[in-house]
């Protein structure tokens, strides 16, 4: 769903920008993109490779430049000792390494056979059994890692303070190694290339896995999410040239994948993500304020109460809670990577409530739709329905998908704070919501059909009729949330995509404000009630200022006049609220009259 991707863009960029702010980023990606991708290993090499192994590696690099006659075994690191180049058919021996529980006076020997290969012993027991000074039973229990720790502990301070830099780099490395493992597994298991013609072999480029590609073609996939400034909605491209070899960068003459788009627009996208973030917060705050004012109006003016207003009150209340939940979520979790890292149980509970409130929102919209449908189509303009089932559907039922989602998430995809949107488990909540929206759409279209046919029956002018129908539909659309059904796909074009994002965010986050405005502030009856109240206050205030009897009597008549219209309006509650505008009452009153006489 398009808005889901927008939300993910928002959350991922907020997370990433705060991560980049608190930790040092890796070496400039622009330069490194033409060089080795796995540069981050360099900084940790001292910790990962022991000094002895490193020395051995140094010696290895100096080998090979001088020619030796005859066959020999090349330099070899067996995990603890460096074995020099040895002529074939001879034994090589050296002292045991200077490790605890090793006797450095003992010797270890290795045989280089006639074909120039080292004879590797099959287990640790044979190799080091001479060196160990204590009982042989303990040999089996000693892990190889244990030996290495003596060297790495030389620098304890580096290990003890696990700074965010180290943990973030470790996380990145973990993801990359993971990707590498999955890649080689895939390369192993996939079918060999069976089409004719030249092709480039499947390969691991250090960050992503590439399949066999026909010659002369570009292939692409999405950017990985290893680094904070990589945009995983952008694409990486790789070119397989006509000779069946992967494209080599002209400067370094090494195979090269084009990761430049991953960071090209990052700054702009970050800026936009922040704009959208603040827009969302402002939108929800405005929605809460306007909805609370509307609720106050609905509760204060008893004369307005009818069944539809009761449903409105519940709908507005669920909007308020939804907005509050979203604001809390955005401020405390999305913008706060430390919380996400700590992963307290509270943020998962918050996520559960967010899902529940989202469900409530859409199911109350569905209740409104069902109510209108029942009112207009099924049993026209009859007054009383039992609202218990609506309450059950609106407040009670959304617990079901929210709980199922929580259980499934805990069991199968328990990431930090349940932030990730890369899981299909989200459809456990969004599926029922989409179903509710679709049913709502069906009801809406049915209502419009009924309204149009009824309007046609009253023999109005064509344009008038369509005008009314269109206006009625447009007023109902924000109420019933249809925009999520009509606009789920984000355009590929960058500019169009940005415009789409802005529009979707306005529709999503200012919806509460829109609904409150259209169904409360623009409601003719509400306006009338407010005007009357205002006149009352003015009159009372005027009364206090001037204590004349004549003024008092006029104020009494004024209040009695205001009483009558309220009584009159009460009966026509249903018909007026269809359009929300008092001026269109005449059509519908005529319609109603027509019904009773027909």
């Amino acid at each position, binding site marked *: 769903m398009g808005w889901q991707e927008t939300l993910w863009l928002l959350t991922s960029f907020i997370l990433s920008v705060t991560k980049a702010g608190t930790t040092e980023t890796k070496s400039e990606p622009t330069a490194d993109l033409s060089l080795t991708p796995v540069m981050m290993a360099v900084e940790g090499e001292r910790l990962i490779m022991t000094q002895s192994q490193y020395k051995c590696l140094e010696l290895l690099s100096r080998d090979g430049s001088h020619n030796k006659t005859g066959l020999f075994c090349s330099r070899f690191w067996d995990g603890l000792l460096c074995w020099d180049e040895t002529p074939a058919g001879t034994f090589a021996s050296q002292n045991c390494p200077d490790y605890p529980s090793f006797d450095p006076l003992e010797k270890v020997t290795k045989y280089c056979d006639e074909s120039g290969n080292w004879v590797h012993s099959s287990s640790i027991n044979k190799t080091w059994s001479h060196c160990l000074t204590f009982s042989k039973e303990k040999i089996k229990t000693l892990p190889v890692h244990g030996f290495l720790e003596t060297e790495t502990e030389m620098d304890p301070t580096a290990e003890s303070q696990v700074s965010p830099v180290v943990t973030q780099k470790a996380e990145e490395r973990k993801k990359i190694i993971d990707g590498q493992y999955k890649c080689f*597994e895939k390369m192993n298991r996939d079918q060999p290339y069976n089409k004719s013609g030249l092709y480039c072999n499947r390969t691991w480029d250090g960050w992503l896995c590439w399949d066999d590609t026909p010659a002369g073609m570009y292939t692409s996939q999405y950017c990985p999410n290893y680094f904070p400034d990589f945009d995983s909605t952008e694409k990486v491209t790789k070119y397989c040239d006509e000779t069946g070899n992967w494209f080599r960068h002209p400067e370094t003459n090494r195979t090269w994948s084009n990761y430049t788009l991953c960071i090209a627009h990052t700054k702009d996208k970050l800026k936009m993500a922040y704009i959208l973030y603040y827009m969302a917060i402002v939108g929800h705050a405005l929605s809460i304020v306007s909805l609370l004012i509307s609720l106050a109006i609905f509760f204060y003016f008893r004369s307005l109460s009818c069944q539809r207003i009761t449903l409105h009150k519940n709908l507005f209340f669920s909007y308020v809670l939804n907005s509050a939940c979203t604001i809390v979520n955005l401020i405390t979790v999305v913008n706060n990577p430390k919380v996400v890292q700590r992963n307290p149980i509270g943020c998962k509970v918050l996520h559960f409530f967010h899902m529940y409130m989202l469900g409530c929102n859409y199911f109350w919209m569905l209740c409104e739709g069902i109510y209108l449908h029942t009112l207009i189509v099924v049993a026209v303009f009859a007054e009383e329905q039992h609202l218990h089932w609506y309450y059950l559907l609106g407040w009670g039922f959304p617990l079901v998908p929210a709980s199922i989602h929580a259980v499934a998430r805990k069991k199968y995809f328990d990431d930090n704070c349940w932030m990730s949107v890369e899981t299909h488990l989200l459809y456990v909540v969004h599926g029922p919501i989409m179903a509710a929206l679709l*049913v709502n759409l069906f009801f809406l279209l049915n209502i419009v059909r009924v309204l149009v046919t009824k309007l046609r029956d009253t023999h109005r002018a064509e344009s008038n009729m369509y005008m009314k129908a269109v206006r009625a539909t447009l007023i109902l659309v924000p109420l019933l949330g249809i925009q999520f059904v009509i606009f789920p796909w984000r355009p590929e074009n960058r500019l169009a995509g940005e415009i789409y994002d802005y529009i979707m965010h306005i529709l999503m986050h200012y919806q509460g404000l829109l609904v409150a405005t259209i169904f409360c502030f623009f409601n003719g009856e509400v306006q009338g009630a407010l005007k009357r109240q205002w006149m009352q206050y003015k009159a009372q205030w005027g009364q206090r200022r001037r204590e004349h009897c004549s003024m008092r009597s006029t104020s009494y008549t004024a209040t009695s006049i205001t009483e009558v219209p309220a009584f009159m309006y009460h009966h026509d509650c249903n018909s007026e609220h269809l359009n929300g505008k008092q001026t269109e009452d005449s059509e519908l009153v005529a319609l109603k009259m027509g019904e009773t006489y027909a």
Partner: protein
Amino acid sequence: MACSSHYGNAIEEFCLAKFKLDMEVLDQRQWCSWEDTVESYGELTNCTFLVALKMNCFWPNQMVDEFFIRVHRHYFHDCSLSGRLLHDPPNRILGPFIVVPILVTLLMTALVVWRSKRSEGIV
């Protein structure tokens, strides 16, 4: 000194032995357990990278690919592909999780519509 085919031999001789030792310490059934093997695998990768640096080879390259394919064939050939990063459950579990709430939603909606219709008749 440019990159030569010695690189392939070098990583076999230099890096693979340590990895072999590490894997031998583990029980063969643990070879498919990512938590147990991730460190050794990471060290192996690092080792190939550092050897490449020293031998003026760019990393990764075709020899690295072939080397790792051989390693995987020997050690990880019968491990399940998924199970490394967080992933969705298989479709036979995911399907019911999604379809059942949708069906229940439609049922509830139909129920509410039916009940509200019926209440009309009563009134």
